[in-house]
C-alpha cells in the first residue's frame, strides 16, 4: 500500500469492562457491555462488520461462532461478523483484520470486541486450555504450562546475561503503581520491591509477581474511515498510523534463538516503516506482560533496549510514567488483569485514551505517538499497532 492510496482510519470509540471474576456474566453479556460503551463513545455509529477476538470460548464455554452470537445479542443481528483466534494475540489480530477490511474500501465502520470468560473452569482445567497456545504434540504433551514456558525463557535469560537477583522486580512494581490509579484494574494496590522478593515461586525462576492474573474481561473499539465521521469530533482524533502482524514458530524449541522474539521484532519493524517513524519516536508502549520476561524481551525486540538489557529499563525507571518509554500505563496484564484474547484490544484502547488525554490519573502529558503489541503464546503471533493523535485536534 503506498501512502497516497491509504485511507485514514480513526478510532471513533472505546469501551472497556473491568477485568475480574465475573461469575454472574455470560460471555455474550460481558461482550455486550464493552460494545455498548464503545458505541456510545462513538456516537452510536452502526458498524458494517464485527470482529470478535477470542481464544478460549470453544474450550471454556463450549461455544463457537461468536461472531453471529455476539452480533445478535448486541442488537446487530444480520451484520457481517467474524471470530478471530490467535491465542493471546487475538485482540491485535482482530484489529489488524478490521483495519485491512476498512482499507479495502468494502466497509466504512468496524466494531472490534475482545472477550474472554476465564472463570468458567477450575484452575487445572484452565491450564490445559491456556497451554493450547503452544504446540500440542510437542510441548503440551510433556505437561508444560504457560508459566513453565515463561520460566524456560527466564532461566536462560538470567543464565546468559548473568542477572542480579530480583532483576525483574521493576516490571511488577511499575504495573501495580499504575494499576492503583486505574479504577477498572483487577489489582488497585501499589506494591514495593520487598513484596516482589517475598513472593512464592510458581515455576522457578518465575514467581507469583512475575505472572499476570488471568480473568474475565471485554474491550471494544469502533474504527471508522475518516470521511464518514462528523467534522467536529467529540474527542481528539486518534488515527491508526500502522497495523502489522508477523509470525514465528509456535514451539519454543523450534526457534534458533529462543531469546529473540522474531515475530515481535518483525512486526514492530514493519509498523515503524509503515508509519515512517523510529522506536525513539514512540512515547508509550503497551506491551505483552503476561509474564515479566516477555516485557523484557519485547522491549529488546522492538528496539528500546539492546539484547540482554531490557530488564534494565525496569530497574532504572525508564518504563515508569515519567520515564523515556512508559509501559503498562493502565496496569498492564499484571495489574489491570489479563483477558487472553481480549488483551490486545485493551492495549489499543488504552493507548488511544492516553493520546486523547483521557487516561485519568495515569495520563502521560502531551503524548502524540503510542504503540501496542500483543503476542500469542510465547510469541508465535505478534500484532503491532502504532497510534497517533491527529495534528490540530
Amino acid at each position, binding site marked *: 500500500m503506498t501512502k497516497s492510496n491509504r485511507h485514514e482510519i480513526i478510532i471513533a470509540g472505546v469501551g472497556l469492562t473491568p477485568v475480574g471474576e465475573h461469575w454472574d456474566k455470560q460471555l455474550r453479556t460481558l461482550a455486550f457491555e464493552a460494545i455498548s460503551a464503545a458505541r456510545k463513545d462513538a456516537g452510536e455509529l452502526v458498524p458494517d462488520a464485527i470482529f470478535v477476538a477470542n481464544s478460549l470460548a470453544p474450550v471454556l464455554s463450549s461455544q463457537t461462532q461468536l461472531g453471529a452470537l455476539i452480533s445478535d445479542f448486541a442488537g446487530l443481528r444480520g451484520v457481517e461478523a467474524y471470530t478471530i483466534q490467535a491465542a493471546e494475540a487475538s485482540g491485535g489480530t482482530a484489529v489488524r483484520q478490521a483495519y485491512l477490511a476498512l482499507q479495502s474500501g468494502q466497509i466504512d465502520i468496524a466494531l472490534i470486541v475482545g472477550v474472554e470468560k476465564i472463570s468458567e473452569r477450575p484452575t487445572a482445567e484452565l491450564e490445559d486450555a491456556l497451554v493450547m497456545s503452544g504446540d500440542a*504434540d*510437542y510441548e503440551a*504433551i510433556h*505437561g*508444560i504450562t504457560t508459566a513453565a514456558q515463561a520460566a*524456560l525463557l527466564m532461566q536462560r535469560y538470567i543464565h546468559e546475561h548473568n542477572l542480579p537477583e530480583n532483576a525483574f522486580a521493576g516490571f511488577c512494581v511499575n504495573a501495580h503503581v499504575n494499576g492503583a490509579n486505574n479504577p477498572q484494574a483487577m489489582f488497585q494496590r501499589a506494591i514495593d520491591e520487598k513484596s516482589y522478593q517475598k513472593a512464592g515461586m510458581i515455576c522457578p525462576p518465575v514467581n507469583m509477581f512475575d505472572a499476570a492474573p488471568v480473568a474475565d474481561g471485554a474491550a471494544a473499539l469502533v474504527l471508522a474511515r475518516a470521511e464518514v465521521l462528523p467534522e467536529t469530533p467529540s474527542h481528539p482524533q486518534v488515527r491508526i498510523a500502522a497495523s502489522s502482524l508477523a509470525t514465528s514458530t509456535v514451539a519454543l524449541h523450534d526457534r534458533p534463538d*529462543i531469546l529473540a522474539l522474531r515475530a515481535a521484532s518483525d512486526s514492530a519493524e514493519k509498523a515503524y516503516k509503515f508509519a515512517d517513524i523510529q522506536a525513539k519516536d514512540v512515547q508509550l508502549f503497551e506491551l505483552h506482560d503476561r509474564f515479566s520476561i516477555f516485557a523484557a524481551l519485547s522491549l529488546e525486540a522492538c528496539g528500546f533496549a539492546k539484547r540482554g538489557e531490557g530488564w534494565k529499563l525496569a530497574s532504572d525507571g525508564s518504563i515508569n510514567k515519567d520515564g523515556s518509554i512508559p509501559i503498562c500505563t493502565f496496569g498492564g496484564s499484571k495489574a489491570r488483569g489479563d483477558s487472553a484474547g481480549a488483551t490486545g484490544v485493551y492495549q489499543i484502547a488504552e493507548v488511544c485514551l492516553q493520546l486523547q488525554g483521557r487516561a485519568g490519573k495515569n495520563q502521560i502529558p502531551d503524548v502524540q505517538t503510542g504503540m501496542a503489541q500483543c503476542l500469542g503464546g510465547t510469541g508465535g503471533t505478534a500484532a503491532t499497532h502504532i497510534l497517533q493523535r491527529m495534528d490540530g485536534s
Partner: protein
Amino acid sequence: MQLPRHWRLNKQRYALEGEICTHCQAKIFPPRDICPECGEEANTPLNLSGRGQVYTFTKVVQPPESHAEQAPYTVALVKLDEGPTVTAQLTDLDEDQQPVEIGMPVEMVTRKLYSDGDRGLLIYGYKFRPLIQQS
C-alpha cells in the same frame, strides 16, 4: 480419547525419529517437510542418538489437569547432540546429589507421558535422565 493422534507419532515418541535434509545435511526434529535451515524439501528419516544437554529448565508445581498425577516434575529444553532442541520432562533425578543445571548431559529414555482421559489410554514417549557415565 485421541487414538490416531498418538499412534501416528509412535516412531518419533519411542525412537526420536527425525529427518535429515539431503540438501544441506541439517538434522531435524520433530520431522517437518521443509528444512528449516535451507528451505528445501526434507523427508529422509533419521533416528537421533537421544544424547544431549539441558539448555534451560524449570519445575512445574501447578500442572495442567492432564498431568496432575505427576506433579511436581521438571521440564526442560534439551539440545540434542545432532543439533535440534526438544521440549521434554527430565526424569530419574536425584536433586540432592545432582541438582539440575544448564549444560547437564542427559540421555533419552521411554516413559509414560500421561494417561489420556477416563478410558485410561497410556501415552508413552521420550523423557531425559542424567547421562549415566559408562566406565
